[in-house]
């Protein structure tokens, strides 16, 4: 299907803007780091959280055990979002698709950077094939999750749950645009770059998009590739810079809040499990205790 040395040419068609890209990326990262610093310094200017006074019925050593609870909470409630699962499968699966799709795509971008910029060049042959396959499906997951979230928010949600503002819609559109231009970029690249023709037969959404670009010929596809590259890259860099100034910052703050809640509850209950409220009715209605 392809040789062991098969790989993608990074910056295909936009080599002339390589320095511009790195400079832009640096600026975006600097803005993000500055934004995070602003937030963290604001948090640090808050008062220390008051200690929870332990009563005689409290058990356990509190501090040590509570951090164990935080670790559990982080894995179960942040990475797997079990609290959301308990509230409803649809919301949970859409969140998982978006979150893990985004994380995998982010990890893929880091892997590409390590392979290209650090001279390791490990994305060749089968590794590259698997890499593309995983990233393609992560991209599909992201798009499906975003569409699903939009349907839930703007079609399925009950009137009293519709508290979404302009920023909520903007974030959905921004993420979706980044994912969509990613596939368009991939497809245009396949059609424009002669040595990527084998990729057109791969079982990926990018390959399907690429086959749509083939008809216009390599030159036109190349022009589209450059245009889409700029749109995709600068949307992504804008998103990176915008994270600390938007509701997306909950990706950092929510795990901290969830961890603090786990610790607070663990201390005040002496280690009792933290049940998660299910959606709607709570079990127990009509249950009679022993008399």
């Amino acid at each position: 299907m392809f040789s062991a040395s098969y790989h993608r040419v990074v910056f295909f068609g936009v080599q002339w803007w390589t320095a511009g890209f790195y400079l832009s990326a640096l600026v975006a990262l600097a803005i993000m780091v500055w934004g995070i610093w602003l937030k963290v310094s604001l948090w640090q200017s808050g008062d220390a959280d008051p200690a929870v006074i332990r009563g005689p019925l409290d058990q356990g050593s509190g501090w040590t055990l509570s951090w164990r609870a935080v670790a559990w909470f982080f894995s179960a409630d942040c990475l797997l979002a079990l609290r959301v699962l308990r509230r409803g499968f649809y919301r949970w699966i859409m969140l998982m698709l978006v979150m893990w799709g985004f994380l995998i795509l982010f990890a893929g971008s880091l892997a590409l950077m390590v392979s290209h910029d650090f001279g390791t060049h490990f994305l060749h042959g089968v590794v590259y094939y698997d890499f593309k396959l995983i990233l393609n499906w992560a991209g599909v997951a992201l798009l499906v999750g975003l569409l699903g979230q939009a349907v839930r928010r703007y079609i399925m949600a009950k009137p009293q749950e519709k508290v979404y503002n302009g920023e909520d819609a903007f974030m959905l559109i921004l993420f979706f645009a980044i994912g969509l231009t990613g596939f368009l970029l991939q497809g245009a690249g396949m059609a424009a770059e002669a040595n990527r023709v084998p990729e057109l037969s791969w079982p990926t959404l990018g390959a399907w998009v690429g086959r749509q670009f083939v008809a216009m010929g390599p030159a036109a596809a190349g022009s589209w590739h450059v245009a889409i590259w700029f749109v995709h890259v600068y949307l992504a860099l804008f998103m990176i810079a915008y994270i600390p100034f938007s509701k997306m910052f909950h990706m950092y703050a929510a795990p901290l809040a969830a961890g603090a809640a786990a610790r607070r509850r663990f201390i005040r209950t002496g280690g009792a499990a933290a049940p998660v409220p299910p959606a709607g009715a709570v079990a127990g209605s009509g249950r009679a205790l022993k008399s």
Partner: protein
Amino acid sequence: MCAMKAEKPEVRLWEGLTRSDLISLDACTRCGQCIPYCPIQEASGQRDISPPEKITMFRQLLSSQRGARAVLFGQRPLDREKLQKLSDALYHCTVCGVCGEYCEVGINCMRLWPDMRHKMVELGVGPFGPQKDTPKTTWEFKNPYGQPHSERLAFLPPDVHVEKAAENGFYVGCSGAYPSKPMVAGAVRVLQAAGVPFTILDDEWCCGFPLWVVGVHDKVEQFVRHNVDEFVRRGVKRLITSCPCCTTMITGNWPRYYGKELPFEVVHTTEVVADALRRGKLKIREYRKKITYHDPCLLARGPREVIRPPREVLEYVPGLELVEMERHGRLSKCCGAGGGIRRANFKMSIDMANIVITDGDKLGVDEMLIDCPACFERMHLAQQQPDHPSDLPILDLMDVISRLV
């Protein structure tokens, strides 16, 4: 709408908020999952005063003082219209904390809302309506009801012996001392029957909760220090509380104002009674009734999470059948008495009380037992209104138990 006073530009919105509060502002994803469970939303349906809206408005105002633009180009004056809207939203809240229980990122709303209210007070846009009288009344009378301080112990049944000094102190609380006397009268009778000697302060002051919850914090420390010092003087090693508001205030906030951990333990009456029943120190007569128990917000969701002890007490009552409400324990509904809303919006608080009473009535029980003087007062008041939907008898748990020991 409360009148807008002159803005105080020196007020920094982040000061006085805890680190958890500040992180919470960024953690809220506006998922809206708390909204269907908010009692204010259930009673009013006003989405512009919902929990996510409050957080969003506060975050926006904070951004004008500490956001990127403020850092680069200087602070902007606070948006007065938004500030007023935020104040209205914050004071149309019972601070019941159920939003925090349903919050998927675990925001501690029971602390966040009062801390935000404190900022509103500093900015001159709080408290709200008749709540404005609370600080003056509470300081003058040592209770928020404006009742004579000399009548604070009028609830005390003549057959109950109170020690001058004892290891157990009983904190009466203003609501029990004045509008809901049967509750604390029942509690002290049961404690005596359980063989628990206790002392009560002749000069007990309000615990400070009514001030703290409306955001007026400047006198709270004096209330706390007076009470703590008096109990210490009487040799108290364990303070027994009755009222959920007092319980939350004492366990969660007194150490903050006292400056260190309290020199005594704090337990709720039902914990002491359950323990006495377990050890066979108290026997209860038959009570052949089918009842439901309404968990008070601040008892079930407060720092001590007193959920199991009242049920344990009920299990020891021969003949009693407990039918749980659909939402109980940490998820129980608010009766509308909390957060000062009963002073600020009478109709809304009565509507909320009626929702809880109706929920109980639907279970086909003989009585609803409660363990909170504020719930007791509000539900009875709701039943005195001309169009009240249910005459389900509302009784206090300790009052009932005291008649069975």
